[in-house]
């Protein structure tokens, strides 16, 4: 089998006309002034993608390019070049299968794979690491956001008592601590700092109407701590961001804006899942003690109403990353 081709010597960009002839596993190359042979020990055949040229890559960056498809097919057989991926890329049937695999695979990885892996890693990390981070985080927050609490011991007593009751049922969490801070910037809020610290703002304390509401918030935060949510969200967010970037990473810079949409949606979903998990922990406790199961939902609706508008405070994040307050009940955690 013969074909015409173009030979480049790798030393200059000049094109040389060539004739190729295939003799079993050897290609005889004839140029205007010389001839030589090529085999698959020193050279490889490169199948085109789409309409590109076929190429034989020789040592020292010499190159032979041709367009004869039959010759290329025969050469691939003789040179034992794997063509599996190329065959898939040419077929619409494989493309359809690939589409299904890509969608199902990404969905499985992002909704099952990443959270399961993050849980295993998080529980393998020693809690001491969390404690150190927690101390530094609260120091930082104290400097930039928090003021000292203005509450009296009498005002915090019922909350401290409720916290002690919760810990009493979880002896392995006995070293968790409760602190109060004033924070005009974020308003009524409570959160868990890694390492076992639950922070309740003065503004939040002002909204408590009964013991069930107090217990619901504290147990929710203890749930975050016990399930190591701060480490898990960090792991899940970074791994999913890298994964999504890897899938869409071939977009040019400006169009890459559209890749942030799935990333943000995924991270919001992870956050809501953790809120549900912490809610579940709180509801278990409240149920065991015969408390009003609507307490958390009632309280959170008052928190929402107290915030002027979204985006003006921490409430904007609260909404996008948290379930709707009206839905914070037993049904949604099961």
């Amino acid at each position, binding site marked *: 089998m013969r074909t015409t081709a173009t030979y*480049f010597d*790798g*030393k*200059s*960009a*000049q*094109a040389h006309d060539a004739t190729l002839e295939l003799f079993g596993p050897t290609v005889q190359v004839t140029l205007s002034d010389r001839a030589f042979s090529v085999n698959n020990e020193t050279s490889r055949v490169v199948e*085109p*993608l*789409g*309409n*590109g*040229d076929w*190429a034989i*890559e020789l040592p020292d*960056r*010499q190159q032979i390019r041709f367009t004869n498809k039959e010759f290329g097919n025969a050469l691939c057989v003789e040179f034992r070049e794997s063509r599996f*991926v190329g065959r*898939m*890329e040419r*077929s619409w049937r*494989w*493309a359809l*299968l*690939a589409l299904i*695999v*890509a969608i199902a*695979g*990404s969905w499985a*990885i992002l909704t099952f794979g990443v959270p399961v892996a993050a849980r295993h890693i998080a529980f393998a990390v020693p809690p001491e690491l969390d404690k*150190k*981070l927690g101390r*530094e*985080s609260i120091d*930082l927050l104290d400097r930039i956001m928090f003021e000292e609490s203005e509450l009296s011991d009498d005002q915090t007593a019922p909350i401290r008592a409720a916290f002690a009751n919760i810990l009493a049922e979880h002896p392995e969490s006995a070293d968790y601590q409760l602190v109060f801070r004033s924070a005009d910037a974020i308003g009524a809020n409570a959160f868990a700092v890694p390492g076992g610290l639950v922070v309740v703002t003065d503004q939040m304390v002002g909204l408590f109407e009964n013991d069930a509401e107090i217990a619901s918030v504290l147990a929710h935060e203890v749930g975050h701590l016990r399930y190591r949510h701060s*480490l898990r969200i960090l792991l899940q967010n*970074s791994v999913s961001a*890298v*994964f999504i970037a*890897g*899938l*869409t*990473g*071939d*977009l*040019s*810079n*400006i*169009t890459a*804006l559209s890749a942030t*949409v799935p990333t943000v949606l995924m991270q919001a979903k992870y956050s809501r899942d953790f809120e549900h998990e912490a809610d579940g922990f709180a509801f278990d406790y409240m149920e065991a003690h015969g408390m009003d199961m609507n307490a958390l939902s009632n309280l959170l609706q008052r928190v*929402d*109403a107290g*915030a002027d*508008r*979204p*985006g003006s405070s921490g*409430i904007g994040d609260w*909404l996008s990353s948290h379930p*709707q307050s009206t839905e914070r009940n037993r049904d949604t955690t099961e």
Partner: protein
Amino acid sequence: MNAIVIEKKTYEPVEFSGTTGQYFRIWIVNLALTVLTLGVYSAWAKVRKERYFYTHTSIAGSEFDYHANPLSILIGRVIAVILLGAYFGSGYIHPLAPFPVLILTFLVSPWLVVRSRIFRMRVSSYRGIRFTFKPAYAEAFKVYYLAALVTVVSFGLATGTANYMRNKFAVAHSGFGQTGFKFGGRHSGFVAIFWKFVGLSILMGVVAVSSSALLLPLLPSANGADEVSIGVQASFLVMQIPLLVGYLAVGVYYQVRLRNYIWNTSTLGENSFLSTLSAQEMFVIYLTNILAIIFSLGLLTPWAQIRLARYRAEHLEIALSDDWESYLAASGAEGSALGDEVGQAFDVDIDIGF
């Protein structure tokens, strides 16, 4: 060949022959294999994607080619992921720890820029000759540090100057075989483009804010709502759309003007270039691309990429000196430079967008 001869110079268009149908199948197979291998295949995917675009771009009947070894790209990506992990992970050890990591990354960025430019140029070829980038590390540190300093000290007002410095460095150290690119851009040219961009940004900001204000009465009342609903949040998002579109428009304008200016002032041997991108057309392409990708849940990504590549190719021509063939014949390979061997050990493509 549809070449036009003007005063001894032949204008040869850059031709792009990729099609959405072909590239869609390559793209989706890449995606599926990347998912199945938990990301490892992404390096091979990148090579196949680049090869498709390079081999479907041609000048004077000869196509470009891309030769990267997927393993080099894989190693580069592993390093990038480790760096990212260090960045995220250090935040868990100390809340302020990511800052030293950021500063360190900034400090080594000139080295990274040069390394990845060398890699990208060396794996690109035309008619058997590779493109090159000179390993001018010392100059890279000088240029990048100075450009950053100038930008910070002037509160961003000297961004035009910083752009001039960085682009001059990038073009003047690039080459094709033994021929180096020459940078003919002037400082005043970059400064002028930057200030036009600033003026346009201010104008855009005024227009965007006032059109947001016009939209306000059309939205569900935010003030009267007694609970902060998702609906109100969505309204705020809608209000930001004029600003986002305006931001895209001026961003594209700046990018297009810079690209045209850099191409049109650069030369390769006796050959020059003619880049005629239109900021308006590019803006329409980018905007419709983004919308198409979002509303097709990503499925129109290949269409968007092919369309952009075609538009860019259609608006670039190379003004050949009258003896292109003899120029090519004389365009030798860069030879087995000493730095090449050393380079092989670090032959990685660090994928951080510079």
